[in-house]
């Protein structure tokens, strides 16, 4: 049993008629509940919930402050390598683009780590393009050995691995896994992933569960919003998160709502996710999963991020570069264009001004190992 079986059932739901038939009274009922069902989630993502965004926001904020207080966990991504064997129609790292590819040496990893750690951050997310040949598990492991000297928490966002491989990285000091399904709608998934192992939908869908089985402390999932109908994608993402949360209660399941951003190519998605839609998605996530982390990336512009912070967000990236070695040397090809280029200290100041406390360190798996 994996989420795939649930997905097969959920995909059969008559989404169009559900969106159309949801009423204001349905939204009010969902808002009054403590524990939301699958149907409540559908209602909160429906057009009928549009006029209720403020009421949803008030409740989302209450829940967030009760469970997470005024804390906002900060992290930054570090790109280790941009070699990739896939052709995905929305990504600059796609194998069809011809640009000088690079991979950090361990010495360069150390320099990047030192530069990031100097900003005060203690949580890092390492990323690679998807290439087992160029960025094998052994390479990631060697990088983690270096990074654990600088950070109290290291998460990975790399190609899907087997459970034993995840376990190997866990033992090397990785405690979190981020893996986006990108698109839950299966036909669209096949269209957008033209070539390479990433075409294997099921392998990707089951990878977060393999991470839970391996024992990662946190697993973060998401759909790249804009690739297919956002209501359906958000619904399936949240159902995937609840599936994992129910089955692996000891793992902290988080969600991210990334929106499509400009990249090297000229693909533009059919579904335009407006700011209003993004807000509805974040609020529905929070009301459906009151204790789950929700991560906000620098894909969103600074002014919008500052507002979104009060709607249920618990983690955000800061001081971001999406190119290999971008924290020290720079000059590489960014995976996508970021919108919020503020430094860690600028984000810190902004958070304090908004009545929120930046949290640089919220775990210490590496410290545990020393005892």
């Amino acid at each position: 049993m994996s989420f795939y079986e649930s997905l097969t059932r959920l995909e059969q739901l008559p989404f169009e008629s559900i969106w159309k038939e949801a009423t204001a009274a349905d939204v009010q009922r969902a808002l009054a509940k403590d524990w939301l069902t699958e149907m409540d989630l559908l209602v909160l993502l429906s057009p009928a919930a549009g006029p209720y965004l403020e009421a949803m926001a008030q409740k989302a904020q209450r829940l967030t402050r009760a469970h997470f207080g005024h804390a906002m966990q900060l992290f930054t991504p570090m790109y280790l390598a941009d070699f990739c064997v896939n052709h995905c129609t929305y990504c600059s790292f796609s194998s069809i683009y011809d640009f000088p590819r690079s991979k950090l040496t361990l010495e360069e990893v150390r320099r990047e780590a030192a530069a990031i750690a100097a900003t005060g951050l203690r949580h890092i997310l390492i990323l690679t393009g998807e290439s087992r040949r160029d960025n094998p598990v052994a390479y990631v492991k060697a990088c983690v050995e270096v990074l654990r000297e600088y950070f109290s928490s290291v998460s990975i966002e790399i190609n899907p691995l087997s459970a034993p491989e995840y376990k190997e990285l866990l033992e090397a000091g990785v405690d979190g896994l981020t893996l986006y399904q990108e698109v839950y709608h299966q036909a669209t998934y096949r269209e957008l992933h033209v070539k390479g192992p990433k075409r294997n939908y099921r392998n990707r869908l089951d990878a977060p569960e393999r991470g839970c089985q391996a024992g990662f402390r946190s697993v973060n999932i998401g759909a790249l919003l804009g690739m297919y109908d956002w209501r359906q994608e958000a619904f399936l993402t949240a159902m995937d998160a609840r599936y994992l949360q129910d089955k692996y209660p000891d793992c902290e399941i988080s969600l991210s709502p990334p929106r499509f951003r400009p990249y090297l190519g000229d693909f533009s998605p059919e579904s335009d996710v407006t700011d209003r839609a993004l807000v509805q998605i974040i609020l529905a996530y929070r009301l459906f999963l009151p204790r789950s982390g929700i991560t906000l990336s620098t894909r969103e512009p600074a002014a919008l991020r500052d507002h979104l912070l009060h709607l249920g967000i618990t983690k955000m990236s800061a001081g971001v570069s999406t190119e290999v070695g971008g924290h020290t040397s720079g000059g590489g090809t960014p995976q996508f264009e970021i919108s919020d280029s503020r430094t860690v200290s600028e984000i810190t100041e902004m958070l304090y001004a908004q009545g929120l406390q930046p949290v640089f360190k919220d775990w210490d798996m590496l410290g545990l190992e020393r005892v």
Partner: protein
Amino acid sequence: MQDPLVIGNTSLSSRLFIGTGKYSRNTLIPEVVARSGSQVITVALRRVDPGADEENIVSHIPDHMTLLPNTSGARTAEEAVRIARLARAGGLGNWVKIEVINDQKYLLPDNLETIKATEILAAEGFVVLPYMSPDLSAALRLRDAGAAAVMPLGSPIGSNRGLRTKELLRILIEEVKLPIIVDAGIGRPSEAAEAMEMGAAAVLLNTAIATARDPLGMAEAFREAVSAGRKAYLAGLGPVEEAAVASSPLTGFLGN
């Protein structure tokens, strides 16, 4: 009147324990400490970063406070033991709040793992204060394992739902010959007072103060509520009757 709470070798005049999480800034902590009158403060070791300056939570805690590092983030007894040892090695003292949670949805404690961790740490000389679901058998085992107090929840962490476990707390207070510190769920000063009136030795709370509109005012309100509740307990509450009992009986003229 002297009415100290003695835990380990420490005598406390305040029965309000507070936390350090969820504040909008750590610089509020010293004033919350002052206004609450608290002498014991819990801090999640996972948040402690000795390398940080302003962001190091411990640097904001006044020196006179007894630190109660907690094992937040531990999913097993083994992890809790490691965190406790790390805290002591890091100079945070030998008190520890055992918090073993492997349910990220409700954040309810795992009593079995908590008992295992308590046995190990108490034997190593820690002053162990385990956070637990209020279950009599588990509380007695924690006592036998060497806990210095037990800390049952009033309702789930951060919920501000009050004393939903009241009947179970009452049984623990009556049966476990250790200080009972009600931890988690208290949202209002009146609920803290009620716990103290019932005979709880102390209360530990964080969310109710940290997420109040005015945390300093709320810290003071809890100080007074805990004190009032304790005084009421010591004074002995009057009996509760099913029917009205008149102060001036109507049949008194009949004599005996």
